[in-house]
């Protein structure tokens, strides 16, 4: 088995052992090339789930010629089982702003936006207060950049970057065709960097630690550490920053309740790993990636209820524009119900599995493409629970 790490707690995101002002002030004096190089060296990949190398994103956007560019903080954390961005915005908002400012410097943006999910509106007043303070710091540092907070209104799909732009433009949050990608055609059609909350904090902290230091953590494919949201059947639910590259077995030893049947890694859009695969499953891009969501299920739980819950979620949160996702989600939901009731034979699950393959290959965006992940991993591993 490839390079694995033992479970190790890390303290980069929330550490109080640093002053964001100092990091920012130093970063604003560094060259853009050095910052990008440091990010590339660090191996940092997006922490929202998709895992695109952050340094590349910044580099591509920096290379675009445009009268206007934007940096956007994606705080539309909606994946079931994820709550780390809320905690980061609550505890270390200045680091988030700082990461945005560094990104703005690198790509040449004068405006930044935080797209805060509607469910987190209670954070808004404090965030705005901190932001006003931050803008004063920017003035002190003589850096021409402003951040505005906009709020979502209850649509999971707006976490998809192009849907988020559409929403910011006052439209339905329907994902766009790609290409073009945000680095060339983002918010208002301008080159845009859009990063997850956590990614921005890491970007700032890499300015302090250096890319090489960050790279020492984690594995080849999954460098550094990550904030995990742990929930479900665990005695210690909460938020943990851990080095990447541990096995699921390692994780369950720490967080399980001794009776863990399966772990859903990556939320409803992620994979369900059954006990028999804990040992050989790495949490990371080489194994099962996650935006942070880790839901633990013990043997008292019905996996039918779990998949049914996810399918209800997808059926409702699909934007509805593309056929495989809109109709596919309805078919999967009603399909598992029909099998459970006995209206359809168990073989019908195979038709549904084929359908998820089509959804994976033909859906317009990540939502429809990822329904197959949880569906196949639950139905394949817990087929008997789908009937009885």
């Amino acid at each position, binding site marked *: 088995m490839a390079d694995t790490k033992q479970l190790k707690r890390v303290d980069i995101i929330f550490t109080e052992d640093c002053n964001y002002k100092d990091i920012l002030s130093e970063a604003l004096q560094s060259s853009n090339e050095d910052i990008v190089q440091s990010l590339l060296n660090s191996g940092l990949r997006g922490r929202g789930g998709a895992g695109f190398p952050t340094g590349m994103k910044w580099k591509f956007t920096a290379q675009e010629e445009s009268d206007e560019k934007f940096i956007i903080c994606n705080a539309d*954390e*909606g*994946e*079931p*089982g*994820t*709550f780390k*961005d*809320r905690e980061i915005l609550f505890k270390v908002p200045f680091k988030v702003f700082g990461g945005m400012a560094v990104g703005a410097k690198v790509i040449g943006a004068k405006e930044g936006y935080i797209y805060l*999910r*509607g*469910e*987190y*509106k*209670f954070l808004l007043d404090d965030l705005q207060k901190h932001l006003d303070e931050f803008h004063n710091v920017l003035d002190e540092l003589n850096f021409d950049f402003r951040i505005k907070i*906009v*709020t*979502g*209104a*209850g*649509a*999971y799909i707006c976490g998809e970057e192009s849907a988020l732009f559409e*929403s*910011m*433009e*006052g*439209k*339905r*949050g329907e994902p766009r065709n790609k290409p073009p990608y945000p680095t060339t055609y983002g918010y*208002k059609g301008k080159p845009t960097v859009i990063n997850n909350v956590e990614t921005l904090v890491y970007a700032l902290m890499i300015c302090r630690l250096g890319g090489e230091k960050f790279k020492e953590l984690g594995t080849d494919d999954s460098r550094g550490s990550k904030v995990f*949201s*742990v*929930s*479900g*059947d665990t005695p210690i*639910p*909460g*938020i943990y920053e851990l080095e990447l590259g541990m096995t699921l077995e390692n994780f369950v030893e720490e967080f399980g309740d001794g009776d863990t049947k399966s772990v859903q890694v990556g939320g409803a859009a992620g994979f369900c790993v059954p006990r028999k695969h804990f040992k050989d499953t790495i949490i990371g891009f080489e194994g099962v990636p996650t935006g942070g*969501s880790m*839901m633990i*299920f013990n043997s008292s*739980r019905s996996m039918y*209820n*779990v998949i049914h*819950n*996810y399918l*209800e*979620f997808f059926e*409702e*949160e699909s*934007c509805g524009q593309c056929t495989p996702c809109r109709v596919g989600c309805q078919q999967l939901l009603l399909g598992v119900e029909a099998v459970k009731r006995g209206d359809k034979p168990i073989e019908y699950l195979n038709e549904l599995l084929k359908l998820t393959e089509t959804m994976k290959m033909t859906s317009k965006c990540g939502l429809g493409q990822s329904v197959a992940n949880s569906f196949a991993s639950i139905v394949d591993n817990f087929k008997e629970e789908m009937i009885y």
Partner: protein
Amino acid sequence: MSNTQQMVKELVEKHGRERTNLMAILQGVVDQQNHLDDQAIIEIAREMDLSAAQVYGTASFYTFLDIKPRGEYVIRLCRTITCDMKGKREILHTLENLLKVNIGETTPDNKFTLLETNCLGWCHKGPAMLINNKAYTELTPEKVKEIITEIKHKS
């Protein structure tokens, strides 16, 4: 000028007439009157040179931009599996009994609307719910009773 016209006019002046401000304006209306009625949407469309159907279509995409009348307090109970595992159903029954309404309904005095919603981001402290913009976590039937009683007595 009607109240609705006045409200919309102020919001549009505050946020701007370009479509990029539509979300903020729609949210502004919901903040003030709990839902988007046809008059508000017609006014927004007029002010922003959009069609009313476009504004309606946009609003109806977003769960929190209610296009149906809602009570003064909108309760959104998290329906995600992790909250479910921590006793969400019991919380739901408690709310239904206390308010004498089912999911999707509003109390006759227009005080409360009971809804379910997708993940609220409090999975480690489930069951969770939002009442308007405020989050309540680690709910128990007793806690829910206290919360509702307190709101009832507020007015």
